[in-house]
């Protein structure tokens, strides 16, 4: 079996690298990087970034969990977010609080659809907003964007090309035989495009042995993401699970926040100088109930919080808890007397971030990226 270096050497010598998979090393339009993290399950924003300055918070959450650093004596970050403190102080991290999509019915799966499809009303088109962004940017190379997951994420899906790559990609057996797979799939409407992606994975797997964190898990995902973004890839997305804390939240939420802290700090470390040109957006489908339920957890709610990170924030809205207007936590201020009231559409912030990152016009934001979403007045984030 051919090893990695021999393989790269062989394809380079044959000039076959691009012809065999459709990949070229052409420069992308922009050197700015975007990482979209979907926190699946519904993060409890009131525990992650606790509004300790709101007089009703202590009543709602008498058993408040351990805190780390505070902002303006009004918000306190959860203890498990402590590793992010240096980033916050360097203005490379921000939180957008009390935001949501317009969805109000608290189903994980419909709420994730709103976040990933990006359209204002519930629709069933099978394309995600990142894919439409790729189209708009004129991304035609498969390695311009990457869905780093073992399945596939709706936020990335659509007609524009992108890599779907998992950390489980040791395709050594096939590396000498790709021409047979190409022959097998040629002209097949579904498998031919899949094959292009598989070959790209194969090439990535040849380089995986040098990753700081090979193998599986969030660290391996971040290593792979960082490596690709240092090369031709400009946009990447992956998911972090484990936010659906209906019971025993004290023990469970910390683990998921650990994973988020770990992901962001590791991306910064492994991206090196590229971090200065990077924006990370981490968002969850909804927040959770303002009160704890009877089993030491929280149920599905509405408004939540999104995280922004990256060197690009330092000259913009870094080091802040961004909030249009704190909605309050008294019963009459909560949505249906149970959920944090949304004060803004989270996709407005994501949209304006794309405007700053890639020059997407407000018209395109409201018609193509987030169809039907009124992006309103400009928000300068980066």
């Amino acid at each position: 079996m051919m090893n990695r270096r021999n393989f790269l050497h062989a394809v380079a010598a044959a000039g076959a690298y691009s012809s065999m998979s459709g990949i070229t090393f052409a420069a992308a339009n922009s050197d700015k990087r975007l990482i979209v993290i979907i926190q699946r399950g519904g993060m409890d924003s009131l525990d992650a970034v606790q509004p300790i300055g709101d007089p009703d918070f202590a009543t709602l959450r008498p058993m408040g969990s351990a805190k780390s650093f505070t902002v303006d004596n009004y918000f306190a970050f959860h203890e498990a977010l402590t590793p992010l403190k240096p980033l916050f102080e360097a203005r490379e991290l921000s939180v957008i609080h009390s935001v949501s999509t317009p969805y109000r019915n608290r189903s994980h799966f419909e709420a994730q659809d709103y976040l990933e499809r990006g359209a204002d009303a519930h629709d069933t088109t099978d394309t995600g907003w990142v894919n439409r962004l790729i189209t708009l940017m004129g991304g035609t190379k498969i390695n311009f964007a990457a869905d780093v997951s073992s399945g596939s994420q709706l936020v990335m899906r659509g007609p524009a090309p992108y890599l779907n790559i998992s950390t489980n990609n040791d395709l050594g057996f096939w590396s000498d035989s790709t021409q047979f797979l190409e022959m097998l799939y040629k002209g097949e409407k579904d498998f031919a495009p899949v094959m292009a992606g598989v070959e790209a994975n194969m090439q990535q797997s040849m380089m995986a042995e040098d990753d700081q964190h090979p193998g599986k898990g969030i660290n391996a995902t971040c290593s792979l993401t960082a490596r690709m973004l240092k090369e031709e890839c400009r946009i990447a997305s992956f998911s972090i699970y484990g936010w659906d804390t209906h019971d025993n939240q004290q023990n469970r939420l910390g683990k998921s926040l650990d994973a988020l802290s770990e992901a962001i700090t590791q991306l910064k470390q492994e991206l090196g100088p590229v971090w200065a040109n990077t924006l990370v957006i981490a968002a969850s489908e909804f927040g959770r109930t303002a009160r704890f339920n009877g089993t030491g957890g929280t149920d599905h709610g509405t408004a939540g919080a999104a995280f922004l990170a990256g060197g690009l924030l330092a000259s913009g809205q870094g080091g802040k808890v961004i909030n249009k207007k704190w909605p309050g936590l008294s019963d009459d201020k909560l949505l249906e007397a149970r959920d944090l009231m949304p004060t803004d559409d989270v996709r407005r912030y994501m949209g304006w971030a794309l405007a700053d990152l890639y020059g997407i016009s407000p018209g395109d934001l409201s018609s193509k990226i987030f169809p039907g979403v009124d992006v309103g007045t400009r928000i300068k984030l980066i």
Partner: protein
Amino acid sequence: MNDADYIKAFRFGFGIPLNGKFDPMVELEISPKANSEAEGELVGRIIYLGEQNAMAKEAKMANADNPDAKKTKNKELNKQVKTYHAQDVHNAVMAAVTSDQMFTNRLQAFWANHFALGATNRFLKATAGLYEATTIRPNMFGSFYDLLVNAELSTAMVYYLNLQNSIGPNSKSGNRNKKGFNENLGREILELHTVGVDGGYNQDDIVAFSKILTGWHVEKDSGQVVFTPGRAEPGTKFMMGKSFGGAKPQEQEAKDAFRFLADHPSTARFITHKLAVHFVGPNNPELEKALESEFKSSKGNLTAVYKVLLTHPASAAPLGKNMRNDFVFLVSALRANKIDPKAFELKSREEDKPPNNPLTVGSMENLTQKLWAAPSPKGWSDDSNFWLSPSVIGARLIRIPIIVTHFEDEEPAIFAARVLGPNLRPQTLSTIKLASSRQLALGLVLASPEFNRS
């Protein structure tokens, strides 16, 4: 086998039958019975885990100055749970690989995914496999109501969707301990297991149903799911326009609610739509209508519904509308040719490690679809787009050489014709004829689009 037999075997089974004959209608006559061995094993494991947890706590207390005592106990326990899990995954794959009852095993996988588990903690890892054997398999040929009640009030589901500590706030226990309920199981039963997200319920109905479900929990000493009136919320609850329960909490209350949901017209539509999409593919309105109407008129008699599914003209249509999921792909691949039984031995490579087998456990760990570990209670997708991603296909390509290396020697062109029948494309045949090795040629058959579709 004629063309119609191949279509049936791919659509309702795992491809070509081992004995040359596949008759799913016959399987409906021999529905599986309760599995008392698995039931005993399940209870034994629950009691064992309870005792071990208690011992771990004791060890910690007795050795306050020795934090390693608890760590050692935990390590031992984790190894035992991994061993249980490996055995269960191995047994589940082997049962499907060796059985003539392909439709029964496909149905089992379908329902286990409908009432999906995400085995993320020790308790669920140790019990999820037995949940499928004790709860799903013996109940999937009777009424949907029976399957529903057994699935929701199973030890695994009670733990997975957090019913275990959900207590009526005005119950005796709730008053005494200032405890209450959560909405997890109530919401997901409505959205994912019965009426569906558009089935006609709102937030108040979710709260009412969550209260109705209180009282049911796993009794750790017996390993059984029991109803304890002192934990159940008293009073009448209104769900979807109907009242349930009364002043005195009773076992019957939750069962009345399950009966109401099983009989609800939205449930008939939701369940039959899912069956049609899973087995035949999307966009079969006539099939869905026929299934829905049978579900309603038979009061959720699942065998009657399966009969319509198996005999409807839409089910004889050409293959190719669906992608096989990873489990069906793997079992079909392992059945495609003779494999030396020695290759299927489950054993520990090192004394300290839980047992493994690269064909069964190793495959299920490395394909995208993990058994009893769906990423959410929604289970694994029936959408072909999900299974058509490079990550999913890439993971299958990684397993293929590991499988074909154990195949009995067979001329690749003969193998392709035997396994794929009328679906074999000329393109596949011409490709394998050019392959540089027999192993590669056999692997290409398993990698072909027609092998990955149904």
